[in-house]
Every structure is written in structure tokens, then in C-alpha cells.
């Protein structure tokens, strides 16, 4: 059985990641110090969400097909909308949508959408293999916007980049999608980019995080943040 791996699996293992089952997939639980991670996540924490489901659709029929599947889409491009189950629908253009599976519990939406790819194709909504093609990190904490300012030319502070905003921009000279979501007091940014450059992006982010005392965190902390927010 060949299991999917995170594109930064080696880096995670080298950093002492403890893996476990989360939301139906194997991902990093913590890095061996859960208590410290909780504080770090409020200050500045970086989590690898690459093992979690995500899927994209593009084409003239993408909006209609996704809407017919019950996905609530933002009204305009470069916006994110959280679904009732916690998944996030991101409009990358008028004809392209990226759906991120929910973090808190096992995904059902992405799997359902992926299973319908053939139908979607007929409706001119072409599926895009974002699970394998894009890394998915989450940057959380009070210093997240300041940290991103070291890597990205877009102003990520409130109110310039409010919750629900999406920037398709350069992150450390890498094409990336940055999504601002609400998990309570600490801001959280989802970062997605070319999976082949995941090692580079992870290293660049950790480097930028140093001055803020940032560190990698596991999903346990993100789950806790999400619960608090609920």
C-alpha cells in the first residue's frame, strides 16, 4: 500500500514531528511539545496541512456545477467562503474555484466533489489535482501578517486584507494563494503553492518566523484554536 506523503515529509520528520490520525488522514499531531505549541500558535505557528483534502475546478461550467453540488461560492474572485461543514471555497477567478477540506473533522465535501469529476468534466468544470499539485500550510498567530510582510508584497494586515480575502501573489518569489480566515483572536492564513517547492517555502517561512519566536505546530493546536473559536 502506497500512502500519500506530504511534500515536506522529510523536513517534518527531521523537525521531530509526531504523526497521528487527524480528520481521517495521517498528519502531524505536534512536534513533541504540545503546550509550547499552543502558545506559539497564538504568537506565530506554521502547520503543514498538505495531507488534508483539497480540490480545484475550472472552466465555464465550474460555478454552476459546484453550486449544484451545494457549494456556497463567494460572489467575486479572490474571496473565500466558509461552508457550513467548515470547508472553504475560494474563488481564484470567475471560472476557477479551490475547495479546502475542513480541518476540524474528516472531510466529506472534497471527496464528494472529486468523485464527481467525470460529471463535472461533462459540465465543462474541469477538475484540478490540487491535493498533489499544491502544498497547504497554515500560518497562525498575532505576528502572522508581520511575518508575511517579509515574504510577500501584499499588505496582509487588517483592514487592508480582511477575513475572507484571497491574494494570489508571490510568496518568497513563489506563486502562492494566501487566504485569510477567522479562527478567533489570532489571524490565520492558509498558504498554498507549487508542491514541488514546498521544501523551499517551508524553509523560507521558518526563516522569516525566527524573529517573532515562531515555530512549526501540529494539527492538535489548530484543532484547539478552531474549537475555541466555535
Amino acid at each position: 500500500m502506497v500512502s500519500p506523503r506530504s511534500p515536506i515529509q522529510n523536513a517534518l520528520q527531521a523537525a521531530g514531528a509526531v504523526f497521528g490520525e487527524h480528520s481521517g488522514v495521517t498528519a502531524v499531531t505536534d512536534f513533541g511539545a504540545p503546550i509550547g505549541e499552543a502558545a506559539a500558535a497564538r504568537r506565530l505557528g506554521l502547520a503543514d496541512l498538505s495531507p488534508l483534502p483539497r480540490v480545484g475546478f475550472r472552466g465555464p461550467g465550474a460555478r454552476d456545477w459546484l453550486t449544484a453540488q451545494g457549494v456556497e461560492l463567494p460572489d467575486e474572485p479572490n474571496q473565500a467562503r466558509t461552508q457550513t461543514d467548515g470547508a472553504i471555497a475560494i474563488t481564484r477567478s470567475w471560472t476557477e474555484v479551490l475547495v479546502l477540506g475542513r480541518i476540524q473533522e474528516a472531510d466529506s465535501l472534497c471527496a464528494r466533489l472529486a468523485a464527481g469529476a467525470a460529471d463535472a468534466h461533462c459540465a465543462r468544470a474541469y477538475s484540478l489535482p490540487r491535493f498533489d499539485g499544491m502544498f497547504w500550510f497554515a500560518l497562525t498567530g498575532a505576528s502572522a501578517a508581520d511575518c508575511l510582510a517579509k515574504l510577500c508584497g501584499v499588505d496582509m494586515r487588517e483592514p487592508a486584507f480582511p477575513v475572507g480575502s484571497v491574494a494570489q501573489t508571490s510568496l518568497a518569489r513563489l506563486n502562492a494563494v494566501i487566504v485569510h480566515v477567522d479562527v478567533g483572536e489570532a489571524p490565520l492564513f492558509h498558504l498554498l503553492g507549487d508542491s514541488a517547492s514546498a521544501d523551499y517555502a517551508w524553509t523560507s517561512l521558518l526563516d522569516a518566523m525566527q524573529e517573532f519566536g515562531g515555530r512549526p505546530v501540529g494539527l492538535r493546536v489548530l484543532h484547539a484554536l478552531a474549537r475555541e473559536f466555535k
Partner: protein
Amino acid sequence: MRERLSPPAGSRIDRSRPVAFEFEGRAFTGYAGDTIASALAANGAWCLSRSFKLHRPRGSFGFAGDEAGALVQLESEPNVQADTRAVEPGLRVQAQNTVGGLERDQAALLGRFERFLPVGFYYKAFYKPRGVWNWWEKIIRRTAGLGRVDRSWTPEYFDKAYAHCDVAVIGGGAAGLAAAAACGDQGLDVLLIEREPELGGWLTYGRRKSADRTLDDLRRRVQALTSVRVMTSATCTGWYADNWLAVSQGNRLHKVRARAVIACTGGTSQPAVFRNNDLPGIVSAAAAQRLIRHYGVRPGLRAVVLTTGDEGYAAALDLAEHGTDVAAVVDCRPDPPAGPMASQAEARGHRILSGHTVREARRDSQRLQIGGVLVTRVTGPGACAADGEELDCDLLVVAAGVAPAGGLLAQAGAKFRPSGRGAVPRLESLPAHAYAAGVAAGASTVEEALAQGEQAGLAAAADLSGSAAAAPAIAARPAAAEPTVSWPVFPHPDGHEFVDLDEDVTVREIEDALAEGYEDIELLKRYSTVGMGPSQGRLSAIATAAVTAAAQDSTAAAVGATTNRPPSVPTRFGLFAGRGFQPVRHTPMQGWHVDAGAQMMTAGLWMRPAYYGPPEKRADAIADEVLAVRRAVGLIDVSTLGGFEIRGPDALEFLERAYTPSFRRLRVGRTRYALLTDEQGVVVDDGVAARQGPDHYYVTASTSGAEQLYPLLLWYQAQWQLDVDIADVTSAYGAINIAGPQARRVLEKLGIDIGLSPEACPYLAARTGKLAGVDVRLLRIGFVGELGYEIHPPASQSLGLWQALIDAGRDYGIRPFGVEAQRVLRLEKGHVIVTQDTDGLTHPHEVDLGWALGRRKPFFVGKRSIEILREKGLSRRLVGYAVPDRRAAVPDEGHLVVRDGEITGRVTSSAWSPVLDQAIGLAYVAPDQAEVGSVITIKAARGRLVEAEVVRLPFYDPENLRQAI
């Protein structure tokens, strides 16, 4: 350490924290908060370095980080501004530009040969007789004092960050604070950038009324505004288009984006020009006041003050109140108006010499600093009597006027121009969304600066809200502020009246350059080097304009000014060269390759295994990998190949237009070679198109070409507007090429639900199915000329599948092979690599790819050009060659094909074939050399000529049987 002045003097030093450091090998003690220069001044040491050209003793004039005179050498860093760099415990400081030390600089002898070093001497000497420059260069480079780079230095961490704001206020003095507060009151997001460690500017060191609470009030007001962010010790070095500001702070370069900018950059105290005006101990009025109020340093025991305005009197009052004996206030104005400070000075009994100037400064007999001045009567513009009164002093304070610090504004497009016959530039106009206030905008009092700051802030706020047409904040110049005296430049028959202290440029040199015809101010600057030092003309431009205007009987306004360019102040290289971003792409198998001992090479942004094994066994490793593929089975990671999904009702039409072959007869489940040419008919990329479904094609592209190809395909689609979607899925799929006679058995052993028999999966078939439980796309293609399958699994499962293939293939002698072996293998098959065997002019017929052209198609990109090129006839052809002499040198790629001394082509690919046991290659040759059997001559390394025979391609398995089994 001398005793410091009592508080409140010394606001920046912490007297409880002494700091011991060394200067020129001598021990000194300062306080935390001192700069190197202030700590030395507190110890009576004014001389910091030697001048660039004549090695004259120099110190700081302004104590504001502007001049070359204050550049010192730290152990690991040259060119440090001693008057702004904080002193640290254990710091070892050396003077710069000396031979044998500051006190006994042997290079000071150069001063005796000054007459042989006239203006522009380096344009006139050192080049005759021919070759003499090589001799001079060593001496000049050794003599030029620009500090010493420590090559064993461990680089510090420098980086960059972006910052955004509604309004950036440059300068945190009175005007800047008022402007920031005014903007902040309007709710704007304000970034206040101050180069000093504290806000306040002149208010922190200038002479103010005892009850003046302006500074405290301003600071409190700004601090109370959460929308105002303050950056201290931050220097704006460039103001680029669209209000993009470069701001250096510590080891970070901030890239600031502001919707509007308010420049409150203040002014620069100007030197007066007279003989020996460069001696250490000659300082500006502002510098003397900084030393007193910031550092608690009594600047001298006995001072003379030279002034052209009321500021000098303020300095004299400050000095006297802090224990310095003021010998005289020398006022160049014949009949000075009774300014408030002048009145106070007169009332306190200071000796005032109106209509006088310092004609000459004299060096102290014991120390490298001023010892006295000769004061004489001013007899006319730029003229003074030869005889006068000698005054002993250890300090000369100069208040010759303040020039607006307009460098940044000028970069942004603001216009400055001296008014009337004055020499000081005045702000005339501002570009859109740019504002100015304070001294930079012509203010001469704190009250004016505050009012201008407030006004500029409100104007910027109105501008950004779009509620009103904002009028640039340029104050009308009060008539009273017009100069009543010409700029204090007093040429001396014996010279050494320096116009530019950075570059040792004197009045005579400016006059000589003008006499030689360098009359344009830009030419004058380049020829004489005036204004080209670290101060970038901030301390010399006005005097230069005044000298030039006098020489040309013109005005400073007519002389004009040189162009301001960023960076406006010396900037550490680390800020530019520090952390940059160089994205790297890894295949899913990157870690496996490294663990397996692969030597990695770059391919565009990708890392790829060149071969597996130590570098010293490179040739053997490559040969073994080649033989493994030919005799058993090999595995190569080709995840770097580009991959595009082309889907939609018009997918076929898109391919027909973009690629050269026709795909109309390509059935689902089949692949076809896909060649791409540009509009000039030049080969730009190739790959394989696999028809996955009726309106779904999966097209690969070369590793090097994929990144450029995707935008090109999108560009075509933007023009053609077909009903098709093009998706770059390069990173979503890994790609593994398994090749060799045993390839099929390995896959079957691993478990695959795709029939692999030649009938079920023939050569050029495309299949999808499960291999070891992983969903894969399987393309049966043969780049290396053996039975082979290109497997495209999801990236996240590629490593697992790779490892499974290695495990399953162990019994069959499987081994991984790298790019080098692949190059040999494909060369043996005569396959072209686009960009290695093609160049920016190669069209398909030159490389025998005419078969890949869909001639019956009505259109494909490049079709018409290719037809024209074909009609013209070939000027070269790519052929395969073999070197019959096995002892001959193996040509390298790039070696020339020659005939009768003429170049007829070049080698594009070359290798020793372990299978054929001879050197083979591809080369461009003249068309008449392309016949099979022709003998060509290759000029190999060290000029050796190698005979090679043109052979039929492919070199190996000419019937192509092995890849079809």
C-alpha cells in the same frame, strides 16, 4: 575620560553604563548611547581619519553621518560613520586611509605633491607610455583609502520586508511629527520614518526657550495615535516611482508602499569655505549643540563662532552656558539685523565682529586639530583682507546656513531652484501625492515647521480621501529670509579652501575645471569629483554653485544642480545583497536520490540526479547506468517534465494550432510526438501528447521548457478564445521512466491492472490503471530506445511507487540512472534535446524533424515561416557522427566543425558510448557535409583535430526493434 556636562545635557547617554573601546590602539571610555565620534570628542579626540586624496587629518563637521571625514574602520566592517554608529564594549576602531596610523600617516607626504595632482589628474596621467597603467594601478589601489574588507568575515543576516501605509512621513522632527499627527487624527495609517534613534530632530538639540514643551507635546500626541507607526534609526535612502520608498533600518531593507508621502527631511548645516576649513575641530553649530545636548560633551575650551545668521549666536550662547569660552562671534554680515539670539549674545557681552570672516584656520602645533583662526574684514563678495586678528581656539563653530535636505524629494520629481541671487535651493514644485514641510520646504522657524507639517498632513489626508484638490504645501518665502550676504566662500592665495571635504576639491580646482571647459554642472561634477563622495553634494553643492556662479558671473539658479539618485546616503551592501529568494523545485524523490548518493544538478529551478556515485567515479557510474538500461532495467525520475491537461470541446483544435503535428487521427489511448515551433518557425519545445479521452489530452513538455511553455499556451488561448481549458499539472504528477529489456517484468511483478503485452499495450500506447494500488497514467514511449514505460503517479504517492519499483526490480538488476546516462542513451538513439541540440534559429528541417510537421494542416504556429525557410534551402544540418579512431580525443559540446580553416558547424551533443565503444555525437555541419559517409573535422580541446564520420541515425538499434518488443 573627561568629565561630561551635567544633565539635562547628554540626553542620549546612560552615565551608569561606561563603554570601553579602542581607537587606533588606544583605550577610550564612553557611555552607552554615545556614538564613536561623540565618545572620542568627549576625550578630546577630534581627528577620525585621513582625507581621500591628500591624506589631511579629518573629523566630523556635522556629527550627523554625512561625511567621509567620519568614516572609520571596524574589525569586520569598513566605511563606518563614526558620528552615527553607536559605540559598543570592546569595539576596536581604526582610522581609515592611513599608512602607519592616524598620527604618523606616511601617505600624508602626498600633500607635498599636490601640484602634481590637479583636478582631473587621473584623466590625464597614468596611461602613457603604453602599459604603464598596470604599474600605477597597484599603487593607486593601495593608496585609495576606502577601508579594508575582512574576507574572513562571517556574513551577518540581512533581509528585506515590505511595509504599507496611507501616508509615509520621512523625518520625525517638528514638521514630521506635526504632519504625522495631522494625518493620524484623520484616521490614516501613517508610517513615521526617523533616521535618528529618537523623534524630535532639531527640537532634541537646538536652543529652545526653557518653558518650551513643544517636543513633549508632539511626541505625546503621536504616541497616542495607534494609527501612527514610528520607525526610528531608519533611513529612507530612495524614493522611487509610485511612492515606493527604500528604508534601511539595522540589517533590514524595508520596501515601503505609501499612497502619499510627506517629506520632512530637514536641512543640512553647510560648511564655510576658507583656507584649512577642513581641520578637525571645525564643526557646524548643530554639531556643537548635538554634542552638548545629546552627549553631554563640552565641545571645546575656547571657541570662535563664524556665522551668517542668527543660528551662530544661539550656538555661542549654548557654548558659553556650558563652559566654553567664546572668544568671538564672527559675523560675515556687515550690518547684521538684531535677531533674538544676536540680541541676547550682545546683551551677555559676547565679542561680536560684524563684517568679518575667518580667512584661515591654523592647526594646533601638538594635535591633529584646529589651534586658532585668522579673522579679517570682509571686503566684498568672496573677498577678505589679508591681515587681521589671530585668535587662539580649539573649536571653530560654523553657522553658514542650512540647505534643505531635498535629495529624496528631488528623486521623486520635486523641483528646487535658488531664488534671486541666493545660492540656497528652494522648493518650487512637488509631484502628485508628495508633500513637504519644515526646513526642506523652506521653513526657518519651529513655528513655521509646525504649521507646514500640519498643513501638509491635512493636504495629504484630503488628497487620499479625494474630497478636495490638495494644494502642495509649499510656503511662500518671507522676504526677511532672503540672504543679506553672499555665500561664505573665501578663496586664498595658498589654497586649501575645500569646497568638497569628501573628495578634497578646492575652490581653485573648481575654477580650473571651469577654465578647461567643464562648465555644465553635471560635467563639472564628473571631472572634478565634487559631490561624488559619501555626502553626495549635501555639503558641497551650494558652495560649488556659488563658486561656479562667481566664475561665470552668473547666478546659482542659472548654474543649476546635479541629478539626485538613490541611494541618497551610503548604504551597506548587505542590505542589497542580503537574503534573496531563489525558489527551488524538488521532485517527490529528491530525498531518495540524495540518500542513494546521487550527484544533484540543477535543471531550471529543479534539482535532478546527474548520476549515482562519488564524483571521482563519475565516468564509471554513468557507463554502468547506461549498461543497466541496455542489458537489464533502469529507472529514472522524470518528474521534472512539464505536464499540461488540455480539456474541452476545442482541445483538439487547440493542439492542432499550437503544435506542429496533426492529432486528428490520434485515437484515445495513443500518444504522439508533439513539436512546438514559434512564429518564426524556430523549434522551442517538444513532448508527447496522450489522448486521455475524446476531448482530453495530457501533454508533456521538456524540463527546461515547461515553465515558459505554460504562459505561451495561455497566451495563444487568450488570442484564439477556444472552448478549452489548459492546466499546468507538472507538480501534481510524478513521472518515472522504467526502461530496459526487463521493464515489463518488473511492472508485472509489482502488480498492475493494465495489460502489458505488446498487443494490449503496444509502443506509443497511453493507459490509465493501478500500479501497486496507485492510480497511474502509463505512456509506452522510448526516449532511451528500450522497452520502456513512463509512469505518471500522483506526486504524493510517487516516492512510495518509486521505492516499490526499486524493490520489485531488485531481482532483475534494476538500478536508478541519472540525467547523464539518459543523455548518452538518447544520443545512441539519435534523439534531439531541444535547447541542447537546437538554438534560437533552429527550424525543424535542420534537425530532421520534417516528419513531425502536419503539412496538410491549414495552420499551426510557425507553419508559414517553416515553409519559407524550406524554400530558401538549408544552410546547415544536424547530423550524427562517430569517431572511428578510438584513441582520439572525445570532442566536447560546443567544439567547432572546421573545413579548410573555415567554421562550418559545431558539436551539440557528444559522449563516449559504452555500448558502441566509441565516441559519438550530434553536430551541425554544412549541407554538403551531411551525407552519410562524409568525413568532418572537429577542432577538439587544445586545438587537436579529430576526424569523424557522418553516420546514419540512430547509432544504436537502427531498426528500432528493442523499444517495440
